[in-house]
């Protein structure tokens, strides 16, 4: 390999260590106005009145938007007013928007808006939402516009239900000797990207809407502004510079709509809306919560026969992307196991919580916590080694997924190999639980992971390559650089294909939806696969163009030629050839005649053979491939006070092919850190009124330096045949097993089933006392 596998530095590295890297909120211009939101202090309340009189008295106020009925928004069900009307449905919901000359004026004015509320009973969990007498978060869900294939159930809090009916569950039970039932639950939490969301909108005199936004989905912004406000898609231009972390949170479209409305209210002037940390945590969409019930049945020997699953995803007050998250939860509703009989209902539930967007792993860390905790309970009941139980049931080529996709050696990684490697790394033979000389307990917990990407069936990615007069190439892709380094990976793929030094590949970091080809969304670990395929196609296209010109110059056939090392030359006689710089802008003969022109390569890739899920059985092909892996966590637990340290965390992932070793390691370690903190600490704390009590980093605490364990990351490489150089996605997978592995380790350490998150010492203390009540 020329450059595949090498730890190439990120293309934007220098910008990022010098402070020159530009993010949305770094952009300022004279005359730019500033917007500020007023937030709901209630989780569920009727809005009786809004008085803006005092707010208008603040100098510099240009517009106040409140109480007005704007088009409803939402990706599958249009249930969300951009600014609340009639009632508020979550704590932190936008109730008004002030536009002023500077941010201080906007803030001051927003604080002077007087809103009278009448509090309503609160739906504080999905389980509560399902109770017969539960208050309705949305009274008339049947009246909302929606896409096909989503079915809100009238007079309930159910936004959607995805059913999996594989095999015959009754048969499964009859073949089972041992059954176990697990119940898990956890509250919503947050992505907490370091860059809080920010959008700048302007409506130009010529009718063009220009939005600059920190988004993972600039092309979706363009489509939704068209859908909601009837602006021609060609007239919506969305810019996305570097994004300071997304993790799914910036795949939802929210501030863009508000910035657009704000700009419209002030005659199209440029308006910036920048989230404070508090707003970014609760007002903008969060990480979904879950209540789940898993029932598993297996033979005496530990072969799984039946899985009956109920997932109640806490979509929060508005369904937006939560419906899709709950659907993905059905698609991979079991762990990565061969189970012939699967019954699953995965529901997206309305509650009075902040609404959910995708979160790194897209339902998988959530469902795997439920499923893999139950697997450990099953292993315990069987008296079987939990790793052995998983090895026995590991999904293999030839098996089918819950949506009945037949797996093969390309669309599925090698799970047994991952399990075996994990076993070795974790020194499994030394035992799962031991007491140290100092009395502390060492315990190991493991879990298996898998994930496909449930994404739109027509998702595509495009790439344009333009050449420079010096023979170097500009790589233009719609992938947003959110921190994953995907654009550097794409440069490596191109470098490999053209056998061209990576330094000669110039990557355009910023996305502009008018001049950058579309990449569906920078989500779902699909950048390398989809955009990588587009890069290869674009490279092919460029190479063909280069060869065509070179064939004339070199008096040969196109098929005689090869492009590599900055030259195009005869395959059988490499010394005969010309420098790329002499052909990529056309070739000029000594007499001035010129043939050809600037080489512009283009490539697109659209996922193939994706299908919708059958509404009755869930049968269908929702994603292109399943990445698999096995993960483990080792803890040191103090049984006196229930505190613990995470000593080591291990990930073995079948990545297909490592393209950039250090970047891949970094993706996995970072994801593990996020998963461990989600498992061990991060959660919104709600009071009985559904208010979030910890919407600051002082109380909502991501992992800090020194709290991290030692990470061990190991890759298995089973190529995905249709992926660029065989590489599978890896942006999310380090995260998705961590909460489960941590839960399993601690359950073993504390000798009690710990089926809630976050796994704080107080939770363990309560579990040991047999009292699982919520904290507050």
């Amino acid at each position, binding site marked *: 390999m020329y450059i595949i596998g090498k730890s190439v530095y990120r293309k934007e590295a220098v910008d990022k260590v010098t402070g020159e890297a530009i993010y949305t909120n770094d952009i300022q211009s004279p005359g730019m106005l500033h917007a500020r939101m007023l937030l709901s202090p209630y989780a569920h309340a009727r809005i009786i009145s809004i008085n803006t009189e005092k707010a208008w008295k603040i100098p510099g106020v240009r517009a106040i938007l409140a109480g007005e009925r704007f088009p409803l928004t939402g990706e599958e069900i249009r249930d969300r007013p951009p600014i609340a009307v009639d009632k508020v449905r979550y704590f932190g919901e936008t109730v008004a928007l002030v536009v002023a000359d500077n*941010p*201080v004026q906007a*803030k*001051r004015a927003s*604080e002077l808006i007087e809103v009278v509320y009448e509090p309503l009973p609160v739906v504080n969990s999905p389980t509560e939402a399902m109770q017969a007498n539960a208050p309705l978060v949305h009274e008339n869900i049947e009246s909302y516009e929606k896409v096909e294939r989503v079915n809100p159930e009238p007079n309930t809090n159910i936004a959607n239900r995805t059913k999996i009916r594989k095999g015959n569950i009754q048969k499964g039970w009859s073949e089972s000797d041992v059954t176990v039932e697990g119940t898990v639950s956890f509250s919503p939490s947050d992505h907490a990207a370091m860059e809080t969301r920010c959008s700048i909108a302007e409506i130009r005199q010529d009718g063009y809407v220009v939005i600059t936004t920190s988004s993972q989905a600039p092309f979706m912004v363009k489509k939704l502004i068209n859908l909601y406000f009837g602006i021609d898609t060609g007239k919506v231009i969305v810019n996305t510079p570097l994004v300071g972390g997304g993790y799914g949170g910036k795949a939802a479209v929210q501030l863009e709509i508000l910035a657009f409305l704000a700009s419209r209210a002030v005659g199209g002037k440029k308006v910036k809306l920048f989230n404070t940390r508090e707003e970014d945590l609760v007002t903008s969409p969060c990480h979904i919560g879950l209540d789940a019930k898993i029932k598993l049945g297996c033979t005496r020997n530990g072969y799984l026969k039946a899985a009956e699953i109920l997932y109640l995803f806490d979509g929060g007050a508005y369904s937006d992307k939560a419906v899709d998250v709950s659907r993905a939860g059905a698609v991979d509703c079991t762990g990565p196991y061969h189970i012939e009989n699967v019954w699953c209902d995965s529901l997206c539930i309305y509650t009075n919580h902040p609404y959910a967007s995708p979160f790194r792993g897209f339902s998988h860390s959530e469902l795997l916590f439920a499923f893999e905790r139950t697997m450990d309970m099953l292993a315990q009941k069987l008296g079987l080694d939990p790793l052995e139980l998983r090895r026995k049931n590991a999904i293999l080529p030839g098996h089918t997924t819950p949506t009945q996709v037949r797996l093969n050696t390309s669309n599925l990684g090698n799970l047994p190999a991952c399990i075996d490697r994990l076993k070795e790394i974790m020194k499994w033979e030394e035992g799962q639980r031991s007491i140290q000389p100092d009395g502390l307990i060492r315990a190991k917990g493991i879990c298996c992971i898998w994930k496909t990407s449930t994404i739109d069936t027509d998702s595509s990615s495009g790439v344009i390559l333009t050449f420079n007069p010096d023979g170097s190439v500009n790589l233009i892709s719609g992938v947003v650089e959110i921190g994953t380094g995907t654009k550097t990976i794409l440069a490596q793929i191109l470098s490999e294909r053209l056998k061209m030094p990576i330094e000669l590949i110039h990557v355009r970091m910023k996305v502009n939806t008018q001049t950058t080809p579309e990449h569906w969304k920078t989500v779902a670990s699909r950048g390398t696969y989809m955009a990588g395929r587009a890069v290869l196609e674009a490279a092919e296209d460029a190479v063909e163009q280069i060869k065509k010109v070179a064939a004339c110059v070199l008096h040969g056939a196109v098929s005689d030629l090869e492009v590599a090392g900055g030259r195009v030359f005869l395959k059988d006689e490499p010394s005969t050839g010309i420098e790329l710089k002499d052909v990529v802008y056309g070739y000029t003969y000594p007499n001035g005649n010129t043939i050809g022109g600037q080489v512009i390569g283009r490539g697109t890739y659209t996922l193939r053979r994706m299908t919708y899920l059958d509404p009755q059985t869930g049968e269908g092909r929702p994603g292109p491939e399943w990445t698999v892996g096995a993960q483990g966590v080792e803890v040191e637990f103090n049984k*006196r*006070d229930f505190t613990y*340290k995470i000593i080591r965390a291990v990930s073995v992932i079948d990545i297909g092919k490592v393209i950039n070793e250090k970047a891949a390691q970094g993706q996995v370690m970072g994801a593990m850190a996020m998963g461990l903190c989600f498992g*061990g*600490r991060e959660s919104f*704390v709600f009071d009985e009124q559904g208010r979030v*009590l*910890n919407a600051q980093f*002082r*109380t909502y*605490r991501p992992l*800090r330096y*020194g*709290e991290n364990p030692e990470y061990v990351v190991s890759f298995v490489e089973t190529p995905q045949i249709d992926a660029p150089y065989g590489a599978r996605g890896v942006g999310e997978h380090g995260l998705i097993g961590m909460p489960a592995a941590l839960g399993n380790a601690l359950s073993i350490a504390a000798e009690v089933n710990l089926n809630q998150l*976050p796994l*704080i*010492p*107080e939770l363990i*203390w*309560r579990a040991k006392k047999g009292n699982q009540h919520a*904290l*507050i």
Partner: protein
Amino acid sequence: MLSFDFDYHAPSTLKEAVSIYQILERQGKQPLFYGGGTEVLTLGRLNLVYSDALIDIKNIPECRVQMLTDKHLVLGAALTLTALTERNLFPLLSKTARGVADHTARNKITLGGNICGEIFYREAVLPFLLTDSYAVIAGNEIRTVSFDEVFNQFLQLGKGEFLVQLITNRNDLRLPQFHIKRRKQWNIGYPLVTVASIKKAGTVRIAISGLCPFPFRSKKLEEALNNNDISIESRINEAIQHVPSPILHDVEGSDEYRIFVLKNTLQDVLESYQGGES
């Protein structure tokens, strides 16, 4: 970003600071003395603190003193917590101060700011509650008062007064001591319970933060803990009867759990002294 504007004054003498306050007040302003200003910013942006005239005491030499005299340690209220921990003249204070916020923030947070703050925890208070310490307070006059007397949940400052210095008996600086901070999870965050302790003249003294919305030292609680006639467990059970109310019940942990943590922590304290001078 604050919603309000204020005048800024940086007096260079105690007298000037006091008189600026008085003048501003006569002008109908709401002046506020400050040292680091971190709480003005963090609470101010949430409109939980308001002032239209800030008086910065950092330029007053007396507020920046850090020295040992024959008998005392004198610490200026405007010293940053980092400055204190780096010189480490009062080890127990260094330990409790290092529990406040984080290192970079402690480059800004001052001793006086922490002691006079709104935040529940104010861990820098604990060592002064435990030792023979005095507060020097400037107002119409400069008064020096026993810290124990002037601190009751909050530092009891009169209007227009501010904390200038803390003076601690040198003999108390290096007594056997113990400090522990217990959090909800891992190494970061507010305390569920912070316990600071010294052993003086054979008696264990304990000051606690995080348990209640204020730091405190309870003589009755200490009496119970020092009752060497009964087992450690009994002493602790007796001691927790004397915890003032309310016990915090919030995002960090429930009241019930905090008591559980406190019991363990008290046991750690007592055992540490039993194990010899630490």
